[in-house]
């Protein structure tokens, strides 16, 4: 009992301390690393935001969405259009969130009446329809050759290179989005998401409308997706119909599951996976990246079914088991009752 109390206290101070360390690292990182590393870390921030949006609708509210890439694409196109037409930055950013949010809400108003696979099918339609539409609206989108922008150069009073400035802008916006979303999913809205995910009948009995909650979750997800589209354009400086492609959506879902669904940190880890694993696979053998990424996916799903976010818990679990085994060689089942923690794979440790 005393041990648990110590651990509780340790957790209390170690968490802000760690957050501080990470924050300092994130601030210092671009100053010492190469433009390539900055680009990769900034890309991670972009996809972390996209995954966060997906996490809201899939992880927290439990609704399948295979259309997240469409919202990134819309956000990126709005940002591209705004940039080429000289709109103020803030207005562009707001529209990047608003327009995908409205599209997401309109789709959700119809789609949220469905469940499971039927819902998945409706959301698939977004990238499938979005890609050819983006190609067709070539006046706005630049057709299949895409939209190239030269944007977000550091202002003259800042002595930073392009990549460093973009890093700070993107990471700062991403941090704000994460903070807002974290507060949201921990509050009343987050609790209603969880109830709708677990049992719609219970939600109804508590006066929570599952339909409205689902629409809200979709709208939030697409708004956050739009924000990540804005960030995408800031980093890549280019967007094309490929951004909306269905393949991106699927890869995002995979990354979300690998990072850890229904978890804020999971979204970050998923983004690290999304960006880093193809690079590492490319270092091993560039002509077999898909195979190696697939092998890694299977490995994670076998060893860490709760995603990368469950890694520390998993390691601790294994350590405790070993310690306990060495302490009490006669495997005493009564000892287990003291740890009523359910692991992600549903078994007690």
């Amino acid at each position, binding site marked *: 009992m005393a041990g648990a109390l110590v*651990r509780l206290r340790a*957790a209390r101070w170690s*968490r802000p301390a*760690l957050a501080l360390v*990470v924050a300092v*690292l*994130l601030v*210092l*990182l671009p100053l*010492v*690393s*190469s*433009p*390539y590393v900055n*680009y*990769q*870390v900034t*890309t991670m921030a972009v996809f972390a935001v996209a995954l966060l949006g997906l996490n809201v609708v899939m992880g927290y509210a439990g609704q399948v969405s295979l259309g997240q890439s469409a919202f990134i694409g819309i956000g990126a196109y709005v940002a591209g259009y705004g940039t080429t037409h000289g709109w103020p930055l803030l207005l562009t950013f707001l529209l990047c969130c608003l327009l995908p949010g409205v599209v997401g809400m309109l789709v959700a108003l119809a789609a949220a009446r469905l469940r499971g696979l039927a819902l998945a099918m409706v959301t698939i339609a977004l990238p499938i329809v979005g890609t*050819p539409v983006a*190609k*067709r609206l*070539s006046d706005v989108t630049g*057709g*299949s*050759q*895409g939209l*190239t922008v030269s944007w977000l150069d550091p202002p003259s009073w800042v002595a930073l290179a392009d990549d460093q400035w973009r890093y700070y802008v993107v990471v700062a916006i991403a941090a704000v989005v994460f903070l807002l979303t974290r507060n949201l999913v921990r509050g009343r809205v987050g609790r209603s998401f969880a109830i709708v995910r677990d049992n719609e009948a219970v939600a109804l009995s508590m006066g929570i409308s599952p339909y409205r909650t689902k629409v809200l979750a979709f709208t939030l997800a697409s708004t956050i997706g739009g924000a990540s589209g804005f960030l*995408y354009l800031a*980093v*890549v*400086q*280019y*967007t*094309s119909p*490929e*951004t909306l492609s269905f393949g*991106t959506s699927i890869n995002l879902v995979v990354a979300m599951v690998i990072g850890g669904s229904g*978890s804020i*940190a*999971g979204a*970050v*880890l998923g983004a*690290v996976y999304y*960006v880093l694993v*193809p*690079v590492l*696979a*490319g270092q091993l053998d*560039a*002509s*077999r*990246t*898909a*195979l190696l990424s697939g092998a890694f996916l299977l490995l994670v799903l076998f060893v860490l079914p709760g995603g*990368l*976010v469950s*890694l*520390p*818990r998993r390691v601790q679990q294994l350590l405790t088991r070993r310690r306990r085994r060495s302490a009490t060689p006669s495997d005493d089942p009564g000892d287990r009752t003291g740890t009523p*923690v359910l692991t992600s794979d549903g078994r007690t440790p």
Partner: protein
Amino acid sequence: MKSVQHPRRLSGAVALIGVTALLVSGCTREEASTPSSSGTAEASPGITDTTVSLGISSPLSGATAGPGSCTVAGLDSFLEAKNAEGGFTFGDGKTRKVTLEYLDDAYDPAKAVANFRQLVNKGIFAYVGALGTPTNAAVMPIANQQEVPQVLLTAGAGEFSDDQQANPWTSGFVPTYTTEGAAFGKLLVDANQPITVATLVQNDDYGTGYLDGFQSAIEGSQVKVLDSATYEPTDTSVDGQVTQLAASKADVLLSAVSVTPLQVGVLTKAQSLGWKPRIFLPSNTSTPATVLQPGGAAAYPDVYTPSFAKTPASPAFANDPDVQAYNTAFEQYGSKITKTYTPHCAWSYAEGAVLGEAFSTMEEPTREAFMTSLRSISGFQAPLLLDGITIDTTKEDQAAVFTVNLVRYNGTGYEPVQGY
């Protein structure tokens, strides 16, 4: 209990990110470029007195993996074979061996940019031969800003070649779609007789490029377009469009379909309707083994396609010394990267020779000197190019190859064609 578990999980995850960030930041920024040991001009990154390093990012996985892998395999075959002979002779009198770093971008622009930056970070001298319009379009502004050569691209869109003033560090290699369409039109016009045509093109700027080239070539001639249809690359079937076009009973079908299964569908559907026009196929969907044989192309009076390179597997070229050299080199080096042949393997092999030609007149080990040499090649007969086709990089609005020959399917492979 949950309140105890949750922070611990979060802090653990945060710790993990911290470790990752530390690992990533291990590679610190280096501003210094590779110092040159000799010469008047300071050497650009990626080139020493004995080596040059090149980089390429192409789709090596996903739907475009076949052509993408070939752009690496063919180039690597040429470079490695030349290295084995001792290396490339440069205009400054030195002999250097060339290394090729290749990465997979899966046709994703964001990954292509990441790969480009990674390659530049590793210190490549030039970025060569990459396949894909969106991927190269995303890289182009960065390459031009950082003044890294992004040259001899395997992309049929005009934008990489048609404004060399605006993008002095970028150049295309293969003929544009407009060039291909124009070649078809010219063949029909040269026949000097009334010919009716039906067209089927992809509903985007690729298709428009094809159609523009074709229409400007037939303008004012006896060639008439009776009916046109478009399709989406995501379509699963073009039977409806083929049925519509068959009603026109046109003499010629221009089937600018770039998706392999759909092109096979066009060939099988038209003959099942009893419509057997002469068929024009674009170069990227005209491989006999994957399109013509499954589509039963032998049923049509003629199947034409534009071509500028010899098909190494064709019996017609079995005794050609270039083809034999290619086959030996590909067997030894390229087959490690891909075993499936697409025309891109032959193209990128020829591209290796163009690089060699540029190296041979490059008098200083700098990127500027390389671009100058590369932009002043004309009348160069690269290996594997068809007779009559030469490399000319001096035109300010054209790719390195801007002429194509039309070839005709003879039941097994392609042979040169002398007219309609």
